[in-house]
């Protein structure tokens, strides 16, 4: 057998490894994009939930004012004022919780996207190293069998 056969086989093997590495990295990139998309969706959900809470509180205020007017109470009515204050405090807490939760989820998705990209790069580097290994192995075999 011609020793250059082993060089050829080493090269083919290395090319195959690198090509597979690129494909694997590509897949990880796509996964990262999905994670980023998910993060955006989570942020959107936070905004939607915040808006909903604001609207809910606004409706409550409107209803309460109607009731106060109906009961002929002043806007300075202390009990009414206390009720409204408590409601506003509660609404603020709810809105802050929702915001925190959604922002945290979105941030986690972005972290996962970073990890996926990193895995893609690692897969590509591993394939590259495997390719180098195949090349060097082929070269060793070639060198041992060729006239020295």
């Amino acid at each position: 057998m011609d020793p250059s056969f082993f060089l050829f086989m080493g090269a083919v093997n290395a090319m195959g490894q690198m090509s597979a590495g690129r494909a694997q990295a590509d897949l990880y990139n796509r996964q990262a994009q999905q994670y980023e998309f998910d993060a955006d969706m989570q942020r959107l959900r936070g905004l939607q939930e915040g808006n909903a809470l604001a609207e809910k509180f606004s409706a409550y205020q409107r209803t309460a004012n109607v009731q106060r007017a109906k009961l002929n109470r002043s806007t300075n009515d202390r009990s009414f004022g206390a009720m409204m204050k408590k409601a506003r405090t509660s609404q603020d807490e709810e809105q802050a919780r929702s915001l925190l939760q959604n922002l945290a989820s979105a941030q986690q998705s972005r972290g996962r996207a970073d990890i996926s990209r990193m895995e893609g790069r690692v897969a590509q580097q591993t394939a590259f190293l495997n390719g180098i290994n195949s090349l060097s192995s082929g070269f060793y075999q070639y060198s041992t069998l060729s006239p020295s």
Partner: protein
Amino acid sequence: MAIQVYRKEQNFNAPIGVAGVSQAPTRLANAFSKVSENITGMVYDRTVEDQKQEAREDVANFTMRDENGELVVKSLPDSYSRIQKGVAQPILDRMYAQQLEVDIKAKGAELVRAHPNDPEGFLEAFNGWAEGYGPSSGQYAPAVDIAVQSYGLQYANALYVDKANLEDTLAFNNASQLLSDNVKDIESSALDYSPQFNVAWLTKSLEQVDELLINYPSRFSSTNADTFKKRIFKAFAKVPVNGVVNQLANTIFSSNPEQQSKMLEASINKISLALRGVNTLTEDDYNLLSAFGFTKEYLANTPQVIKSDLASELTNISNTLSENYNLELKQTNAAMSLDIINSNGVVSTDKASNVLETIYEIETVEDFMSKFFTGGPDDSIAPVDDVNHPLYKMITNNKQALPKVVRDMFSKSNQLEIIANSNFDSKQVNQFVRLFNRITRDRTNQFMSRGFSDETITFMTELEALSKTAQATNIGTVLSKITNPEFDIKAMSKFALADETLPQYIGDNFNIKTPQEFNFVNKVAPQLLAVYGKDLATDIIEQTLNRRFYRKGSKYMVPEFAVSQFAPESLYSGDDLEFFDFTIETALSRIGTDTKQTRFNRQEPVMGKNVFLMEPRNVYGPYPDYIVVDEDNVPILTNGEMLTIPRAGMIKYHQDLGKLREKEMMDFRTKADQGPYQPDTASRLSKQIEDIKKANENR
């Protein structure tokens, strides 16, 4: 009515989830890599093995020496890979190491031979050679230096040892040769055998042995010393015995060689017995023997082992004397037998064989034919044409069995060979046929078997028939059929018989009287019919029957076997038959009265009338043993045993006859040696008186 306020459901967008990443590309890459590695690995292993094998074969065929036989150091070819070099280089190194060793050893051995017992000269020459040889060995030069030093020292040491050994060996050989010569002198009885002289020599010789043992312990062991001492003792002990035997040989004399031989043997045996411890020597014997040192003291003092050895040697001497005497006797007998033959007398078969062997040195058929048909340097004409030649007389005057070489000359195989060698010459055939007829006929033209086998008689009859017919000119064709293994006897004999069967043919053409005749014809007829055709085969068979069987009807044999091949009439000539008749009479006289009464109705048994000879079976040699039977073929018993006419009687008769003739010949010779006859009246008278006295005493 209050207006219904719209209450919307709380529904928000949420993350849609992430699909997992497939590992397929990695798995594919791994699988591809695995397959690729496996294939490459296998191909690599195979290529490595191929390259290794190629390297081994190349190295094995490596030419290491040039056309002058000089070692040429070469490197491996550049085309070799690292693998090949890794395999080939160690092998090549070993091969070169061996060749270098061979060169060094061979040169060393050569120089050792050139410098025997000169180690210094050897080392100088060897190192001088190595100075030129080392550099030419290239990378192996250091190994050459080491080997040269090592072997050089070994060879030099061996030379030093050889040198020392040589000097020691020379000294030892001189000393042991001196001792050995002394002992040989004693053994050959070259020295005087006076007892005083013997004691001095014995003491000196034993001292020499002890000196050898002390001075050369590595060359002369105590076992050697014991053996040597035993030899010395034996040599000295042998001196008296030798003296006695020599004296006996010189003093015992008799005009009769047999008597002289026996006397000498008896005397030697007496000495031998005395040495073995069976002493029959008388005082007178001792008085005579003491002159040679053979005394009672000698017998008492000599160790038994040595005496036994001496006795064995004496037995050998005695046996040699017997052999010499037997040889002499054989020669004497042959000379006497030759005289008898020359005077037209008859000698027995054994004596005739002895004459052929001893006088004419004939041992094979070829010897006999050469002598008989061409003659020796003393014969003016060949014995076959000289009726006065002893060989001619021996085979024609005698009617008993012929010596074996003569019988073998007429055997079928020998005759076929002779005829083939003579290019189927009919004269040659006629010569043998005539000779055969001459020696197998008695005076009355009766066929005598002379010890010839059935095959020989049949074949000679065939030859006779052939020589008489027109086919004689074509004898080669006929005989080639006999010797051709592919000749189909069965088919050709059937062809010759045409419509007849073999038993019909035998019944129609031959007057068969006994089963023996029928069996004989049945056995020989197919081949004869196949080879010769019906007419000639019938003639041959008829003649063979007449020769093989006594067809006139024997008066001795049982009537139904009157036609017998063992009829005494065809075995014995006229004179012999008279003695045979006498033997029968003697045998018949042994038949008791009771037997005569019961078996013969009180009549005397008479051969051919009421007693007969039974057809013998299992016959060994030319003469059979006959059993005497009555008319009913029942054996006659005497003293519980069958009455027989043994062949031993006839053989002894021939022997006695021979002895008688020998005695007559001896007497004749004695008288002839005494010179012309001179009458001595006084001695004749005294002899007559003694004869008369003896006769009276016998009465």
